Structures are given as structure tokens and as C-alpha cells.
């Protein structure tokens, strides 16, 4: 029987090259919906995301991660696993942020431990913006990294964690010769009462592919 060739597709434009923008305090989308993006510039739609907050520049981009672990099961009669099961699932964004002295931004990275306050110059007391560190209620945020697609200028890729927090705290070097930055590790938490296929987040793009 004669054979025939199958077309290759190197997908050279479906690659991750462009810088992203990291946003927090986004609105959570409902069933079968996605983050509303202003397509002209790839920012969150301001009407639907009135509290959206840009976390600023990164030192060297961001690492995006969707990581299931699979528990394999073996039987005595065969050498390789015969079935598997998703044992755990993680989704997260890691980056190194440089906006160290932006107290508002840093406050959003210290869930459950920081309290933000400001005060004006008063008599001999200096004006201030502060993070008091102690214990308080943990809060989660809807966080996304949005980047322009290499394959289509003016279209966007979105890596969205519905409910997340930074579990790496803050840590930076204060130096004359080096740019200070703090590593952040934004990890997603499931919203358990959403549809089972849509509890943790969504990686999508503003282009329909066949």
C-alpha cells in the first residue's frame, strides 16, 4: 500500500519572546469567561478591572508554570506503569521585581503580614509611607501576566491565576553597584466552588486557532 507525506509545521512564530506585564488585583472572570483585555494595548480593561495594579518591571522576565504531578501505578505482571492519576497541580508565576521602594506594590506581595499606611509631614514628624509587619488576615489576588504574541502583533497571550499570592516574601540587596530586586513566587490557589475544569486559572490568547 502506498504511503503519503504528512505536512510539518515548525510553528516558528508560536514562540515566547516578547516581554510581559504583570498585573494584580484583577477581577475574577465568571463561568466560561476570561479576563477582559483592552486589545489596543493589552492592558486589563479598566471598566471590568477597576482595581487593576501593574507590578512594574522585572529584572529578567517571568517564569510561567503549570505543573501537574502524576502518580503512576504498577502491577506485578508488567514492568511499566499501567495507569496514572494527577496527584497534585500547581500553577504559578515567578519573577524578580525591581520596584523595591514602591511601598504599595510591595504591600501587595506580603499577604497576611503587612499593613500599609501613609502620613503627611506634621511638625517635627516626617511624612511617611510604611509597611508594618506582623500578623493579619491572608488575602488572595487575581494575577495575570499579559504579553504580546510573536505570531500576531496586536494580539495577546494571557497567563491568569484566579486566586494567588506571593509565597516568597521580599528579599533584596541594597547596593551602590547593583540593581536591587526581589524574587517573587506567585502561586495559584483553587477556587474550589468553580467548575471543576476551571478552578485555578487560564492560559489563553486573543486569537482563535483551528
Amino acid at each position, binding site marked *: 500500500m502506498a504511503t503519503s507525506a504528512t505536512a510539518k509545521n515548525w510553528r516558528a512564530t508560536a514562540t515566547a519572546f516578547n516581554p510581559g506585564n504583570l498585573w494584580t*488585583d484583577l477581577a*475574577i472572570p465568571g463561568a466560561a469567561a476570561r479576563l477582559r483585555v483592552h*486589545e489596543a494595548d493589552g492592558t486589563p*480593561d479598566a471598566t471590568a478591572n477597576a482595581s487593576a495594579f501593574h507590578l512594574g518591571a522585572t529584572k529578567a522576565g517571568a517564569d510561567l508554570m503549570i505543573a501537574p504531578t502524576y502518580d503512576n501505578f504498577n502491577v506485578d505482571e508488567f514492568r511499566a506503569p499501567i495507569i496514572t492519576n494527577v496527584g497534585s497541580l500547581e500553577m504559578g508565576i515567578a519573577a524578580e521585581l525591581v520596584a523595591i521602594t514602591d511601598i504599595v506594590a510591595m504591600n501587595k506581595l506580603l499577604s497576611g503580614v503587612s499593613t500599609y499606611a501613609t502620613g503627611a509631614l506634621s511638625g517635627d514628624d516626617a511624612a511617611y509611607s510604611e509597611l508594618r509587619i506582623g500578623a493579619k488576615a491572608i488575602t488572595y489576588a487575581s494575577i495575570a501576566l499579559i504579553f504580546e504574541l510573536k505570531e500576531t502583533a496586536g494580539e495577546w497571550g494571557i497567563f491568569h491565576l484566579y486566586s494567588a499570592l506571593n509565597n516568597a516574601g521580599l528579599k533584596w540587596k541594597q547596593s551602590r553597584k547593583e540593581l536591587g530586586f526581589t524574587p517573587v513566587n506567585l502561586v495559584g490557589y483553587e477556587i474550589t466552588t468553580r467548575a471543576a475544569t476551571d478552578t485555578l486559572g487560564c492560559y489563553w490568547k486573543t486569537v*482563535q486557532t*483551528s
Partner: protein
Amino acid sequence: MLNPNLENLTELHGDSQKALSAFREIADLGGFGVVDPTYRGGLDVAGVLSDANTAVSEAAKNRIAKLCGEKRKEEFATTSSAAKEPGKK
């Protein structure tokens, strides 16, 4: 409003208890899951109210719109969070 949270729902409904009840009902009807009502980012109801969204019933959409003080609008179907026809932006 297309981005309800406890603060703007309180302004709309007049007191915090009604606002909390509205927030929970919107979250339930719109498939948002149980979201902390103090969450500052709020809920994005525009994608839920879109005509293209078939996961939420028309009755639920109408109720969500009423709780948010919104009318159902055609333009909900024109942004990224709503389904697009192939080849159209």
C-alpha cells in the same frame, strides 16, 4: 457596574448586608465560585453577561445585571473575554 465588589455594591444597594447578599448571589449565578467578598479586584460580570456566553442562563444573566444596576448590552460581546467569530477582531 461591570466590576462589582462589596464597596460599590454597598453604594448601589444602600447597605452592606444587601451588598453582601448581592455579591454572593452574583458569584453563585455567574459561576465565579465562592469568592471572598472583601476581595478588592471584585468580579468581572461583563464576560458573564455577554450574549456569547452560553454557560450562564439568560435568567441568571438578567438577575446579575439587575443586581449590578446594569442593562444587558450588545457591546458585551465585542471584547476579548467574549467569544469572537473566527477572523474577526
